[in-house]
Protein backbone atom coordinates (compact mmCIF):
# COMPACT_ATOMS: atom_id res chain seq x y z
CA UNK A 1 0.00 0.00 0.00
CA UNK A 2 1.14 3.51 -0.55
CA UNK A 3 2.20 6.25 1.73
CA UNK A 4 -0.71 8.56 0.93
CA UNK A 5 -3.24 5.83 0.24
CA UNK A 6 -1.98 4.24 3.39
CA UNK A 7 -2.28 7.38 5.48
CA UNK A 8 -5.83 7.78 4.23
CA UNK A 9 -6.69 4.22 5.24
CA UNK A 10 -5.12 4.67 8.67
CA UNK A 11 -6.96 7.92 9.35
CA UNK A 12 -10.20 6.36 8.21
CA UNK A 13 -9.76 3.28 10.43
CA UNK A 14 -8.81 5.32 13.48
CA UNK A 15 -11.75 7.68 12.94
CA UNK A 16 -14.14 4.75 12.77
CA UNK A 17 -12.77 3.29 15.98
CA UNK A 18 -12.89 6.67 17.75
CA UNK A 19 -16.54 7.00 16.71
CA UNK A 20 -17.42 3.49 17.80
CA UNK A 21 -15.66 3.72 21.16
CA UNK A 22 -17.07 7.18 21.83
CA UNK A 23 -13.69 8.91 22.12
CA UNK A 24 -13.75 12.71 22.30
CA UNK A 25 -10.15 12.98 21.22
CA UNK A 26 -7.42 10.62 20.02
CA UNK A 27 -3.98 11.19 21.56
CA UNK A 28 -1.85 8.35 20.33
CA UNK A 29 -2.00 5.88 17.46
CA UNK A 30 0.39 2.96 17.30
CA UNK A 31 1.20 1.60 13.87
CA UNK A 32 3.05 -1.50 12.80
CA UNK A 33 4.45 -1.46 9.30
CA UNK A 34 5.75 -4.61 7.64
CA UNK A 35 9.31 -4.39 6.40
CA UNK A 36 8.31 -5.69 2.97
CA UNK A 37 6.08 -2.67 2.43
CA UNK A 38 9.22 -0.52 2.44
CA UNK A 39 7.18 2.42 3.46
CA UNK A 40 8.90 5.76 3.27
CA UNK A 41 8.43 6.82 6.85
CA UNK A 42 8.90 10.51 6.26
CA UNK A 43 6.29 10.61 3.54
CA UNK A 44 3.92 8.55 5.67
CA UNK A 45 4.40 10.83 8.67
CA UNK A 46 3.96 13.90 6.51
CA UNK A 47 0.79 12.47 4.94
CA UNK A 48 -0.64 11.59 8.35
CA UNK A 49 0.09 15.14 9.61
CA UNK A 50 -1.55 16.68 6.56
CA UNK A 51 -4.64 14.51 6.76
CA UNK A 52 -5.39 14.35 10.46
CA UNK A 53 -8.30 16.51 11.57
CA UNK A 54 -11.31 16.54 13.87
CA UNK A 55 -10.87 14.14 16.77
CA UNK A 56 -7.47 13.19 15.38
CA UNK A 57 -6.14 16.74 15.02
CA UNK A 58 -3.69 16.36 17.90
CA UNK A 59 -2.95 12.66 17.57
CA UNK A 60 0.64 11.46 17.70
CA UNK A 61 1.48 8.57 15.38
CA UNK A 62 4.07 6.08 16.59
CA UNK A 63 5.39 3.88 13.81
CA UNK A 64 7.20 0.62 14.40
CA UNK A 65 8.62 -1.51 11.60
CA UNK A 66 8.19 -5.25 11.90
CA UNK A 67 10.74 -7.60 10.41
CA UNK A 68 9.79 -10.07 7.71
CA UNK A 69 10.45 -13.72 8.51
CA UNK A 70 10.23 -16.24 5.71
CA UNK A 71 9.74 -19.90 6.53
CA UNK A 72 9.77 -22.62 3.91
CA UNK A 73 6.73 -24.91 4.09
CA UNK A 74 8.69 -27.70 2.40
CA UNK A 75 12.07 -27.80 4.15
CA UNK A 76 11.35 -25.55 7.19
CA UNK A 77 14.32 -23.29 6.42
CA UNK A 78 13.98 -19.76 7.84
CA UNK A 79 15.36 -16.59 6.32
CA UNK A 80 15.09 -12.81 6.34
CA UNK A 81 14.84 -9.93 3.93
CA UNK A 82 18.52 -9.12 4.34
CA UNK A 83 19.34 -12.57 2.90
CA UNK A 84 17.57 -11.72 -0.33
CA UNK A 85 19.06 -10.15 -3.39
CA UNK A 86 16.48 -8.46 -5.56
CA UNK A 87 16.60 -5.68 -8.10
CA UNK A 88 15.18 -2.28 -7.28
CA UNK A 89 12.37 -2.88 -9.74
CA UNK A 90 11.37 -6.08 -7.96
CA UNK A 91 11.52 -4.39 -4.56
CA UNK A 92 9.34 -1.62 -5.98
CA UNK A 93 6.75 -4.19 -7.12
CA UNK A 94 6.83 -5.82 -3.68
CA UNK A 95 6.35 -2.38 -2.15
CA UNK A 96 3.06 -2.10 -4.07
CA UNK A 97 1.83 -5.67 -3.54
CA UNK A 98 3.84 -7.60 -0.94
CA UNK A 99 2.60 -10.99 -2.22
CA UNK A 100 4.57 -10.35 -5.40
CA UNK A 101 7.35 -11.78 -3.22
CA UNK A 102 6.01 -15.23 -4.14
CA UNK A 103 6.89 -14.55 -7.76
CA UNK A 104 10.48 -13.49 -7.14
CA UNK A 105 11.68 -15.02 -3.88
CA UNK A 106 12.53 -18.70 -3.47
CA UNK A 107 13.66 -20.69 -0.45
CA UNK A 108 17.46 -20.30 -0.44
CA UNK A 109 17.82 -23.92 0.67
CA UNK A 110 15.39 -25.92 -1.48
CA UNK A 111 14.17 -23.45 -4.13
CA UNK A 112 10.50 -23.65 -3.17
CA UNK A 113 8.07 -20.72 -3.60
CA UNK A 114 5.91 -22.31 -0.90
CA UNK A 115 6.85 -20.33 2.17
CA UNK A 116 5.01 -18.50 4.89
CA UNK A 117 5.71 -14.87 5.50
CA UNK A 118 5.24 -13.42 8.94
CA UNK A 119 5.69 -9.91 10.23
CA UNK A 120 6.78 -8.41 6.95
CA UNK A 121 3.51 -7.64 5.29
CA UNK A 122 0.79 -5.12 5.93
CA UNK A 123 0.23 -1.96 7.83
CA UNK A 124 -1.60 -2.40 11.10
CA UNK A 125 -3.20 -0.15 13.66
CA UNK A 126 -1.96 -1.85 16.80
CA UNK A 127 -3.27 0.58 19.40
CA UNK A 128 -5.27 3.75 19.89
CA UNK A 129 -5.25 5.96 23.01
CA UNK A 130 -7.71 8.76 23.60
CA UNK A 131 -10.07 10.39 26.06
CA UNK A 132 -13.78 9.59 26.38
Amino acid at each position, binding site marked *: *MHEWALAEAIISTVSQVAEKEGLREVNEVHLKVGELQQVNREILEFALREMKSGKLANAKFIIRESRATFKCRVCSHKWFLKNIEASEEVMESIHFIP*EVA*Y*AYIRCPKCGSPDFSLSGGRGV*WVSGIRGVK
Partner: protein
Amino acid sequence: MLDPRKSVIDRRMSGIKKIIAVSSGKGGVGKSVIASTIALLFADKGLKIGLLDLDFTSPTTHVVLNARNLKPVEDRGVAPPEVYGVKYMSLVFYLGDQVSPLRGADLSNVLLEVLAITRWGSLDILLIDMPPGISDLMLDVLKYIRGARFLIITTPSKMAFETVRKLLALLKGLKAPIIGVIENMKMNDATYIRREVEALGERFLGEIHFDGKLEEALGSVESLLKTSFAREVESILPMIENS
Protein backbone atom coordinates in the same frame (compact mmCIF):
# COMPACT_ATOMS: atom_id res chain seq x y z
CA MET B 1 -4.58 -5.27 15.33
CA LEU B 2 -6.75 -3.54 12.77
CA ASP B 3 -6.19 -3.84 9.04
CA PRO B 4 -6.76 -0.35 7.63
CA ARG B 5 -7.27 -1.64 4.10
CA LYS B 6 -10.79 -2.80 4.79
CA SER B 7 -11.95 0.66 5.79
CA VAL B 8 -10.94 2.35 2.54
CA ILE B 9 -12.18 -0.17 0.02
CA ASP B 10 -15.72 1.16 -0.11
CA ARG B 11 -14.44 4.69 -0.50
CA ARG B 12 -12.03 3.68 -3.28
CA MET B 13 -14.93 2.13 -5.16
CA SER B 14 -17.51 4.80 -4.32
CA GLY B 15 -17.25 6.42 -7.76
CA ILE B 16 -18.20 3.18 -9.53
CA LYS B 17 -21.84 2.93 -10.61
CA LYS B 18 -21.97 -0.76 -11.46
CA ILE B 19 -19.68 -3.69 -10.80
CA ILE B 20 -19.93 -6.82 -12.92
CA ALA B 21 -18.05 -9.99 -12.01
CA VAL B 22 -17.64 -12.16 -15.11
CA SER B 23 -17.76 -15.61 -13.55
CA SER B 24 -18.27 -19.26 -14.25
CA GLY B 25 -16.60 -21.52 -11.75
CA LYS B 26 -15.36 -23.44 -14.80
CA GLY B 27 -12.13 -22.49 -16.58
CA GLY B 28 -11.64 -22.00 -20.30
CA VAL B 29 -15.20 -20.94 -21.07
CA GLY B 30 -14.22 -17.46 -22.28
CA LYS B 31 -14.53 -15.33 -19.14
CA SER B 32 -11.36 -13.34 -19.86
CA VAL B 33 -11.90 -12.73 -23.54
CA ILE B 34 -15.57 -11.83 -22.98
CA ALA B 35 -14.82 -9.54 -20.01
CA SER B 36 -12.12 -7.76 -22.04
CA THR B 37 -14.34 -7.42 -25.09
CA ILE B 38 -17.29 -6.08 -23.09
CA ALA B 39 -14.95 -3.53 -21.51
CA LEU B 40 -13.58 -2.41 -24.89
CA LEU B 41 -17.02 -2.21 -26.51
CA PHE B 42 -18.56 -0.17 -23.70
CA ALA B 43 -15.55 2.17 -23.68
CA ASP B 44 -15.96 2.55 -27.41
CA LYS B 45 -19.52 3.74 -26.82
CA GLY B 46 -18.22 6.43 -24.49
CA LEU B 47 -18.89 4.81 -21.14
CA LYS B 48 -16.31 5.13 -18.38
CA ILE B 49 -15.05 1.58 -17.93
CA GLY B 50 -12.63 -0.26 -15.70
CA LEU B 51 -11.31 -3.82 -16.03
CA LEU B 52 -9.76 -5.72 -13.15
CA ASP B 53 -8.12 -9.12 -13.70
CA LEU B 54 -8.54 -11.24 -10.56
CA ASP B 55 -7.02 -14.39 -12.02
CA PHE B 56 -3.86 -13.64 -10.05
CA THR B 57 -2.06 -16.95 -10.65
CA SER B 58 -3.00 -17.22 -14.33
CA PRO B 59 -3.87 -13.76 -15.63
CA THR B 60 -4.66 -13.53 -19.34
CA THR B 61 -6.55 -10.30 -20.07
CA HIS B 62 -3.19 -8.61 -20.83
CA VAL B 63 -2.78 -11.11 -23.71
CA VAL B 64 -6.14 -10.04 -25.17
CA LEU B 65 -5.29 -6.35 -24.71
CA ASN B 66 -1.60 -6.62 -25.55
CA ALA B 67 -0.98 -4.70 -22.33
CA ARG B 68 1.79 -6.60 -20.64
CA ASN B 69 4.26 -3.77 -20.35
CA LEU B 70 2.17 -1.05 -18.79
CA LYS B 71 2.84 0.38 -15.35
CA PRO B 72 0.29 2.05 -13.11
CA VAL B 73 1.19 5.56 -12.02
CA GLU B 74 1.74 6.14 -8.32
CA ASP B 75 -0.38 9.05 -7.19
CA ARG B 76 -1.79 8.95 -3.67
CA GLY B 77 -2.31 5.28 -4.40
CA VAL B 78 -2.19 3.84 -7.85
CA ALA B 79 -3.89 5.11 -10.99
CA PRO B 80 -4.69 2.28 -13.42
CA PRO B 81 -3.24 2.77 -16.90
CA GLU B 82 -5.66 3.23 -19.79
CA VAL B 83 -5.91 0.81 -22.71
CA TYR B 84 -8.24 1.90 -25.52
CA GLY B 85 -10.15 4.01 -23.02
CA VAL B 86 -10.39 1.21 -20.43
CA LYS B 87 -8.85 1.76 -16.99
CA TYR B 88 -7.05 -1.52 -16.59
CA MET B 89 -5.55 -3.23 -13.56
CA SER B 90 -3.72 -6.55 -13.48
CA LEU B 91 -1.13 -8.14 -11.23
CA VAL B 92 0.88 -8.66 -14.41
CA PHE B 93 2.08 -5.07 -14.10
CA TYR B 94 4.06 -6.18 -11.06
CA LEU B 95 4.82 -9.75 -12.11
CA GLY B 96 6.16 -9.37 -15.60
CA ASP B 97 6.58 -12.90 -16.99
CA GLN B 98 7.15 -14.38 -13.57
CA VAL B 99 4.99 -17.26 -12.32
CA SER B 100 2.94 -16.31 -9.23
CA PRO B 101 2.17 -19.39 -7.17
CA LEU B 102 -0.17 -18.01 -4.52
CA ARG B 103 -2.08 -19.85 -1.82
CA GLY B 104 -5.65 -18.81 -1.07
CA ALA B 105 -4.81 -16.60 1.89
CA ASP B 106 -2.27 -14.75 -0.27
CA LEU B 107 -4.81 -14.35 -3.07
CA SER B 108 -7.11 -12.65 -0.54
CA ASN B 109 -4.30 -10.35 0.51
CA VAL B 110 -3.54 -9.38 -3.09
CA LEU B 111 -7.21 -8.57 -3.61
CA LEU B 112 -7.37 -6.38 -0.51
CA GLU B 113 -4.14 -4.65 -1.47
CA VAL B 114 -5.28 -3.97 -5.04
CA LEU B 115 -8.69 -2.71 -3.91
CA ALA B 116 -7.10 -0.49 -1.26
CA ILE B 117 -4.56 1.20 -3.51
CA THR B 118 -6.33 1.46 -6.88
CA ARG B 119 -7.97 4.80 -7.59
CA TRP B 120 -10.61 4.04 -10.20
CA GLY B 121 -12.12 7.52 -10.03
CA SER B 122 -15.61 7.64 -11.47
CA LEU B 123 -16.67 4.72 -13.64
CA ASP B 124 -19.94 3.66 -15.21
CA ILE B 125 -18.97 0.02 -15.03
CA LEU B 126 -16.10 -1.95 -13.50
CA LEU B 127 -15.72 -5.39 -15.09
CA ILE B 128 -14.05 -8.04 -12.97
CA ASP B 129 -12.45 -11.03 -14.71
CA MET B 130 -12.89 -13.86 -12.21
CA PRO B 131 -10.59 -16.88 -11.87
CA PRO B 132 -11.94 -20.42 -12.28
CA GLY B 133 -12.95 -22.40 -9.20
CA ILE B 134 -15.28 -21.49 -6.35
CA SER B 135 -12.73 -20.50 -3.81
CA ASP B 136 -11.10 -17.56 -2.03
CA LEU B 137 -11.61 -14.90 -4.66
CA MET B 138 -15.26 -15.74 -5.27
CA LEU B 139 -15.89 -15.64 -1.51
CA ASP B 140 -13.89 -12.42 -1.18
CA VAL B 141 -15.76 -10.66 -3.98
CA LEU B 142 -18.99 -11.62 -2.20
CA LYS B 143 -17.57 -10.36 1.08
CA TYR B 144 -15.81 -7.14 0.11
CA ILE B 145 -17.49 -5.99 -3.11
CA ARG B 146 -21.03 -6.03 -1.85
CA GLY B 147 -22.76 -4.50 -4.87
CA ALA B 148 -21.21 -6.86 -7.43
CA ARG B 149 -23.53 -8.41 -10.02
CA PHE B 150 -22.66 -11.71 -11.58
CA LEU B 151 -22.48 -12.35 -15.29
CA ILE B 152 -22.14 -16.08 -15.81
CA ILE B 153 -20.36 -17.70 -18.74
CA THR B 154 -20.75 -21.31 -19.78
CA THR B 155 -20.06 -23.39 -22.87
CA PRO B 156 -22.59 -25.85 -24.31
CA SER B 157 -20.76 -28.68 -22.52
CA LYS B 158 -22.24 -30.77 -19.71
CA MET B 159 -18.84 -30.51 -18.06
CA ALA B 160 -18.94 -26.73 -17.93
CA PHE B 161 -22.57 -26.55 -16.88
CA GLU B 162 -21.94 -29.02 -14.04
CA THR B 163 -19.96 -26.26 -12.32
CA VAL B 164 -22.08 -23.34 -13.53
CA ARG B 165 -25.14 -24.96 -11.98
CA LYS B 166 -23.35 -25.08 -8.63
CA LEU B 167 -22.20 -21.48 -8.86
CA LEU B 168 -25.76 -20.37 -9.65
CA ALA B 169 -27.03 -22.29 -6.60
CA LEU B 170 -24.41 -20.58 -4.42
CA LEU B 171 -25.25 -17.09 -5.69
CA LYS B 172 -29.00 -17.64 -5.45
CA GLY B 173 -28.63 -18.91 -1.90
CA LEU B 174 -26.89 -15.65 -1.03
CA LYS B 175 -29.40 -13.53 -2.97
CA ALA B 176 -26.49 -12.09 -4.96
CA PRO B 177 -27.69 -10.33 -8.11
CA ILE B 178 -27.26 -12.55 -11.18
CA ILE B 179 -27.39 -10.70 -14.50
CA GLY B 180 -27.81 -13.91 -16.48
CA VAL B 181 -25.97 -16.63 -18.37
CA ILE B 182 -24.12 -16.39 -21.69
CA GLU B 183 -23.54 -19.58 -23.67
CA ASN B 184 -20.15 -19.23 -25.39
CA MET B 185 -18.39 -21.27 -28.10
CA LYS B 186 -21.57 -22.66 -29.56
CA MET B 187 -21.06 -24.94 -32.55
CA ASN B 188 -24.57 -26.21 -33.16
CA ASP B 189 -28.20 -25.40 -32.39
CA ALA B 190 -28.64 -27.38 -29.19
CA THR B 191 -30.94 -25.65 -26.70
CA TYR B 192 -29.90 -27.68 -23.65
CA ILE B 193 -28.21 -24.77 -21.84
CA ARG B 194 -31.01 -22.28 -22.57
CA ARG B 195 -33.59 -24.69 -21.20
CA GLU B 196 -31.55 -25.53 -18.12
CA VAL B 197 -30.91 -21.86 -17.34
CA GLU B 198 -34.54 -20.90 -17.75
CA ALA B 199 -35.65 -23.90 -15.69
CA LEU B 200 -33.49 -22.51 -12.89
CA GLY B 201 -35.37 -19.21 -13.19
CA GLU B 202 -32.35 -17.34 -14.52
CA ARG B 203 -32.05 -15.14 -17.56
CA PHE B 204 -30.46 -16.63 -20.68
CA LEU B 205 -28.67 -13.66 -22.22
CA GLY B 206 -27.67 -15.15 -25.55
CA GLU B 207 -25.29 -17.29 -27.50
CA ILE B 208 -21.82 -16.53 -28.80
CA HIS B 209 -20.62 -18.88 -31.50
CA PHE B 210 -17.22 -20.44 -31.74
CA ASP B 211 -15.16 -18.08 -33.91
CA GLY B 212 -12.23 -19.71 -35.67
CA LYS B 213 -10.74 -16.27 -36.32
CA LEU B 214 -10.66 -15.17 -32.68
CA GLU B 215 -7.29 -16.66 -31.80
CA GLU B 216 -5.34 -14.70 -34.40
CA ALA B 217 -7.07 -11.49 -33.30
CA LEU B 218 -5.89 -11.82 -29.70
CA GLY B 219 -3.34 -9.16 -28.90
CA SER B 220 -4.66 -6.61 -31.38
CA VAL B 221 -7.65 -4.70 -30.09
CA GLU B 222 -8.50 -3.40 -33.59
CA SER B 223 -8.61 -6.94 -34.98
CA LEU B 224 -10.53 -8.25 -31.98
CA LEU B 225 -13.27 -5.65 -32.37
CA LYS B 226 -13.70 -6.68 -36.02
CA THR B 227 -14.37 -10.36 -35.27
CA SER B 228 -17.81 -11.90 -35.46
CA PHE B 229 -17.18 -12.88 -31.83
CA ALA B 230 -17.10 -9.18 -30.90
CA ARG B 231 -20.28 -8.50 -32.87
CA GLU B 232 -22.06 -11.25 -30.98
CA VAL B 233 -20.79 -9.91 -27.64
CA GLU B 234 -22.05 -6.49 -28.73
CA SER B 235 -25.56 -7.78 -29.27
CA ILE B 236 -25.71 -8.78 -25.61
CA LEU B 237 -24.49 -5.41 -24.26
CA PRO B 238 -27.94 -3.80 -23.85
CA MET B 239 -29.04 -6.57 -21.51
CA ILE B 240 -25.88 -6.10 -19.48
CA GLU B 241 -26.14 -2.33 -19.37
CA ASN B 242 -29.78 -2.38 -18.29
CA SER B 243 -29.38 -5.13 -15.75
